[in-house]
């Protein structure tokens, strides 16, 4: 059984800091894999290695049977992995529609300008931003910019979507909407790999979860398994809210 | 000693002045992430400043370095408020263009006042003779002045409160502000010091070689090369890298025409930028 994404023994250091140490995991097709861990655990760094922004010193990454270790981000999105950023990166001077059009033009779909624009309108409908298509991206709220990141990534027609803290800074209503959207995305056939701090959300959404701490994989399993893992609880110790959430068995 | 040796020692001395100039550029770059394109024009103003002072007062030029420093500081503060303050947060393109426009204006006014004819500061210290070669006293004095000023800067940045405030802002502006440091004050002063250093290095150059209003451009290029070689932030790194550049020039000038030097420096600049983005001595460039 070959996984959609296979990550084996990946390590990344910055000077004296080992940000990611010998991490291995896989993502099945159609799966939502959650990635959690305390701040500074190396989650975004791991994302950056998977999508080519950083080159790991060790390890291999295989996607849909192809070795993508060390490829540049533009090649990786062509192969089918798109991502959003924790700190949003809208193309500020361009409109919402243009932003998403860029995603469609240069992603895996690699559409021509007109098709990309049409596809972009469809994506904006899906994420519920169609009425805001022509406003400049810089004038969106944080929630809007986050949704734009997702729309832009979707326009690339990825097989795997990397979501980096897409719920941070959102109100409970916005969180609920985003959760619905992520489910819709997976139901549409796109696998999801997501970093999240909003425990309840990620417990609800994920089929499986990987836990990182100090760059190392601490645990891996279903949400229930992970919530019960004593090492995970200890890692989050001191954060009583999370410990509480973990000990509640969420369905 | 051989001719090349002598040329290299000379180059070493002149290089200390390159290092001094580069310190000014590097300080501004490190503190506010602005590439100061008035640098060359300010060096030229330093040359003319020394010339005018020397002709007005006929004192030892090395004493006149002090008023040049003071003028540089004030001029720097003026330039900061005129062209940098508004664009500090904006994309780097904007500060490039704004400092650049001030450069154009200064060169324009300078050309109107002094045309492009060469000028000279006629002052010679007695040289030192070793074997068949004489090292001019001016070169030796310039080196001394550069080292003293560099030491002064180092002391200021590491052992005084304003200096530490400047380093704090260079490190992390938001954190520094949260700690109560007025970043506007710091940026203003840092820019002032940067310009003062540029002017004083120009003043020193005026005692070494003839100059025109356009001479600053060549030294600006050298400053960029030195800053990239040294990485940002450490004054002594810039001084060392300047000396290195001077040595290199000294080793090469006996063999090739002077007009090739800017080309070689450009090549060096690009190569270092591409292969050593962190510089050879210092921390990462912006």
């Amino acid at each position, binding site marked *: 059984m070959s996984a959609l994404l296979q990550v084996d023994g990946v390590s990344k250091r910055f000077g004296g800091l080992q940000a990611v140490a010998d991490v291995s995991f896989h993502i099945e097709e159609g799966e939502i894999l959650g990635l959690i861990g305390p701040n500074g655990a190396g989650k975004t760094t791991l994302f950056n290695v998977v999508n080519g922004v950083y080159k790991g010193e060790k390890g291999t990454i295989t996607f849909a049977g192809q070795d993508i270790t060390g490829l540049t981000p533009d090649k990786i999105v062509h192969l089918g992995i798109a*991502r959003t950023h924790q700190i949003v990166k809208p193309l500020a001077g361009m409109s919402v529609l243009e932003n998403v059009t860029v995603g469609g033009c240069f992603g895996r779909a690699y559409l021509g300008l007109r098709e990309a624009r049409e596809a972009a309108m469809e994506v904006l409908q899906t994420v519920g931003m169609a009425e805001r298509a022509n406003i400049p991206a810089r004038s969106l709220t944080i929630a809007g910019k986050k949704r734009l990141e997702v729309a832009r990534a979707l326009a690339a027609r990825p097989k795997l979507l990397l979501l980096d803290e897409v719920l941070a800074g959102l109100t409970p209503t916005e969180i609920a909407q985003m959760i619905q959207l992520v489910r819709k995305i997976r139901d549409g056939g796109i696998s999801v790999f997501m970093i999240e701090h909003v425990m309840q959300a990620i417990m609800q959404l994920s089929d499986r979860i990987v836990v990182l701490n100090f760059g190392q994989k601490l645990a891996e399993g279903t949400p229930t398994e992970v919530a019960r893992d004593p090492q995970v609880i200890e890692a989050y110790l001191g954060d009583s809210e999370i410990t509480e959430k973990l000990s509640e068995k969420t369905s | 000693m051989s001719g090349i040796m002598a040329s290299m020692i000379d180059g070493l001395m002149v290089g200390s002045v390159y290092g001094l100039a580069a310190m000014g550029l590097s300080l501004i770059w490190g503190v506010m992430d602005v590439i100061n394109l008035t640098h060359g024009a300010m060096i030229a103003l330093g040359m003319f400043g020394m010339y005018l002072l020397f002709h007005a007062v006929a004192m030892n030029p090395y004493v006149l370095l002090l008023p040049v420093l003071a003028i540089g500081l004030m001029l720097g503060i003026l330039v900061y408020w005129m062209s940098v303050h508004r664009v500090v947060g904006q*994309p780097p393109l904007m500060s490039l263009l704004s400092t650049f426009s001030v450069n154009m*204006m200064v060169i324009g006014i300078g050309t109107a006042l002094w045309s492009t004819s060469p000028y000279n500061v006629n002052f010679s210290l007695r040289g030192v003779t070793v074997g068949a070669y004489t090292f001019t006293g001016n070169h030796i004095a310039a080196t001394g002045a550069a080292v003293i000023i560099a030491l002064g800067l180092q002391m200021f940045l590491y052992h005084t409160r304003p200096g530490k405030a400047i380093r704090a802002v260079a490190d992390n502006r938001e954190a520094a502000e949260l700690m109560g440091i007025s970043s506007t004050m710091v940026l203003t002063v840092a820019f002032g010091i940067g310009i003062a250093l540029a002017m004083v290095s120009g003043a020193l150059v005026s005692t070494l070689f003839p100059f025109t209003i356009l001479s600053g451009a060549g030294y600006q290029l050298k400053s960029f090369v030195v800053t990239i070689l040294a990485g940002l932030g450490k004054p002594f790194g810039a001084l060392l890298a300047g000396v290195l550049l001077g040595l290199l020039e000294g080793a090469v000038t006996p063999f090739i025409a002077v007009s090739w030097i800017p080309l070689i420096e450009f090549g060096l600049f690009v190569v270092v930028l591409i292969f050593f983005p962190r510089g050879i001595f210092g921390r990462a460039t912006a």
Partner: protein
Amino acid sequence: MIFRRLTFWLILALAAMFIILPLRGNNAALREDLILVAIAVTLVSNLNLMIGYTGYVNFGHIVFYGLGGYIGLYLVSERHWNLFLSAFVAGVLVSLVALLFGLGILRLRGAYFALATIGVLVAVNGFVANFNPWGRSTGMYLSFDAYQPLGGPMRALWTTYYLIIGVMALSLILSLAIKRSKFGLGLFAIREDEDAAVVLGINATVYKAIIYSISAFLPAIAGALMFYKNGMIDPSIAFEYMLSLEGIVMLMLGGQGTVVGAALGAGLYERLRSFLLTSPKLSNFHLVIAGGLLLLVVLFASGGIIGWLYRLLPRSREVIE
């Protein structure tokens, strides 16, 4: 599809104006004035591709013009090629040189790249000033019989003029076409956030190298034509740093990132400049005024005149590009 854009027809109208105006009374003085404007518009609209579209400041843009001039003049004067072929080959060769340099220096970001372009200018200037076959620092000049194939100096002058207008129109049309293309969208993305652009699938280094190379083509041809018309070239007039700087001022003044802005800025500034240069008191202050203008634009109106128009009348953004 660009034929449907109003801006396209504005460009053609502009070219028509340039052709027709000097025809009345065979006005050579007006022609000389307009040729300078046409060259400025050509240079500035190609510079716009780098600065306005991609967000990379090219300080040494004039190097393409000068190098094109040298290659063109050399081919006509020493190799006795005809003007059309020489100009075209000059354009191709300079674009190739630009591609080579570009692949090297375009790995550098923002400000570093800007500095490197000055270096390219200095390097090429230095090389040409020492290059024997091109006359080193004395340069080359064209003897009058070089104009015979075009029917003598008078007719050659007018032919060159029309060719330059053609190059100007092509430059503007090229900017319009790129602006509305997928390639252009990629450039704008790079301008907005290069890291995000790469993550979205744009190979930024290649895109930048390509546009740098494209931005060299028409200016090189313009250089070949202009120096042919002038009959002489040397390093100091081919690689005038000042012209590079003024190009930036013109672009910022008119409105970087827009097609019309490039032409507007070039036209207005050319007028200002010839006024300044002929006025006895102000000619020394030419550089000061240019610098002052640039500073004012950067501080208070970074979108230039067209940017200001867009803010005043948002609907104009769609129509006047």
